[in-house]
């Protein structure tokens, strides 16, 4: 039975219980991932990270949460009170909602019922996640706008521009997955990856999704919305106490949600690693949960790794990368994938398919070498810059015509 059929037989109390478990798991994962992130980043910087509260500092995030809750809750005078309070709520609720369609296990026995650990299965599940993710941005934008302060406003504006641009790339990268699995339902996409993971056959899509999910979650190196060097705290500058904690929570749940989606769409979801399929039957199917979370945590590690390695992008570089690299590239890739798909469905002769692949590779090489040449030409043109030399001594500007000091 497919996941959709299993879930449709769930009685109400199982649905409620599943919802509760997913919520609790998200909060628990958040607390653990905050700790994990701090520890891992610390190790990358040759520090030891939080190690005081509890064994290995495991309770650090919990204690920080308590501290935040006990702090004074300020609402600035200039703030729009209703929206100001609503913004973190929107942010938090939406990021939890994305988890509803993620299949965590296959067929399992849940208190005597045969079901699957997935709250609901929509035929357009992935579109639902994308929609929810975009609603989540309202939380950030409204927080920035309603704070009645400059830095949050800038942070909110950046965030909206950022998420709009990277969601286009993200959506486009998913199109190839839809074409290949012939479905938009998360559980069916997982089922379609039984032989080969999408990350292997649709590697460019996977790459684009992996990049845009970092942009989507406002994480380093794309954390322009809360660039602390530029915007103080960005959209959450004016937030304190529990409202800030909600933003904090939503950021981490969001990371886990996009990682879970990436796992589902590209890494075979809850299925075991290739060659370890026998483990899927362990514990009556519950062992698939372990596989799922191993994959999610691997993504989380990459998030942390990125943060520990890369500096923040400049805003214009970031936008340029999104619109001029990711989106055109994914459009071209979708064309290729859909053409190949149609070819294989119509059972075109093999030489035609191979010819098509070669011609695509040829066009790609041609285009890149042309753009390289135009870039080199531009560079050569830019080498000569005309600068009127001031009458006081200045360092010589490299590649300028006048290379002598005239002071």
């Amino acid at each position, binding site marked *: 039975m497919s996941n959709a059929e299993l879930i449709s037989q769930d009685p109400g109390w199982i649905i409620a219980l599943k919802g509760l478990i997913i919520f609790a798991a998200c909060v628990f994962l958040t607390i653990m991932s905050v700790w994990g992130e701090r520890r*891992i980043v*610390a*190790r*990358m*910087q*040759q*520090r*030891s990270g939080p190690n005081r509260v509890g064994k290995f500092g495991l309770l650090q995030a919990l204690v920080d949460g308590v501290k935040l809750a006990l702090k004074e809750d300020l609402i600035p005078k200039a703030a729009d009170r209703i929206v100001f309070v609503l913004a973190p709520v929107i942010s938090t609720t939406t990021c939890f909602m994305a988890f509803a369609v993620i299949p965590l296990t296959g067929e399992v026995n849940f208190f005597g019922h045969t079901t699957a650990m997935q709250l609901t299965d929509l035929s357009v599940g992935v579109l639902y996640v994308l929609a929810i993710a975009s609603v989540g941005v309202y939380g950030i934008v409204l927080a920035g706008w309603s704070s009645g302060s400059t830095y949050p406003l800038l942070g909110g504006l950046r965030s909206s521009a950022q998420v709009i641009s990277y969601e286009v790339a993200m959506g486009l990268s998913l199109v190839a997955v839809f074409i290949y699995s012939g479905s938009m339902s998360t559980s069916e996409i997982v089922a379609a990856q039984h032989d080969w993971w999408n990350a292997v056959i649709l590697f460019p899509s996977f790459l684009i999704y992996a990049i845009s999910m970092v942009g989507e979650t406002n994480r380093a190196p794309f954390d322009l919305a809360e660039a602390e060097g530029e915007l103080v705290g960005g959209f959450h500058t004016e937030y304190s106490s529990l409202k800030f904690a909600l933003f904090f929570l939503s950021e981490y749940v969001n990371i886990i949600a996009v990682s879970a989606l990436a796992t589902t769409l590209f890494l075979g979801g809850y299925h075991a690693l290739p060659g370890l399929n026998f483990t899927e039957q362990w514990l009556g199917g519950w062992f698939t949960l372990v596989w799922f979370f191993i994959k999610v945590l691997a993504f989380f590690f990459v998030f942390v*790794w990125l943060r*520990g*390695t*890369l500096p923040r992008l400049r805003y214009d570089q970031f936008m340029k990368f999104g619109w001029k690299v990711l989106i055109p590239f994914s459009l071209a890739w979708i064309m290729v994938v859909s053409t190949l798909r149609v070819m294989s469905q119509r059972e075109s002769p093999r030489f035609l398919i191979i010819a098509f692949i070669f011609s695509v590779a040829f066009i790609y090489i041609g285009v890149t070498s042309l753009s390289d040449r135009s*870039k*080199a030409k531009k*560079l050569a043109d830019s*080498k000569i810059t005309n600068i009127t030399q001031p009458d*006081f*001594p200045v*360092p*010589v500007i*490299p*590649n300028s015509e006048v*290379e002598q*000091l005239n*002071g």
Partner: protein
Amino acid sequence: MADEIMPKSDEFGLAKADQSKAPITNHNSSSFGKQLLGFWVTFKTMFKKVNTVQYPEVKEPTAERFHGRHQLNRHPDGLEKCIGCELCAWACPADAIYVEGADNKEGEQFSPGERYGKVYQINYLRCIFCGLCIEACPTRALTMTNEYELADDTRAKLIFEKDDLLGPLRAGMVPPPHPMYPNTDDGNYYRGEVTGSHPSQGIAKND
């Protein structure tokens, strides 16, 4: 005009900039590979030994000449070196030191010579540990220790009095007030010719 600004060594500054005619090599194809190399650096660092000192449990010794809490020193017979001249207070850029000098009297001698520091306070809320006071001190009465754990919970506790700052009485020292070593003057003390206490000065601490 340019001669004044041009550095003497042509390894640095304007002269060096003049030589840099090489094009900016940001556009070469290997820069992306180099960026990927950065990921390896952070990954590798994860398995290195951490540099963190587990502070309250483990205390690393400071640098030898670390500027810590001050100390008012004593002569070998126990008399205070401070003569209450207030040079330290005048040298202090943060106005952290307050000194009140007083005359040594017959039978109430705290330091060799005429004057001693009656009141000596250092406010550690103001002190910036620059060490100008110890440079100013003419008798090396004021020096700095390596003690750095100076946090406290009230402002009053962070104003150190003379009692808090005076160095401990070592073996052979007699707690002042007591008379100077027989047949010496402050010059002998200053030149380090007094190396211990005399029985006539009082009962010396022995340990």
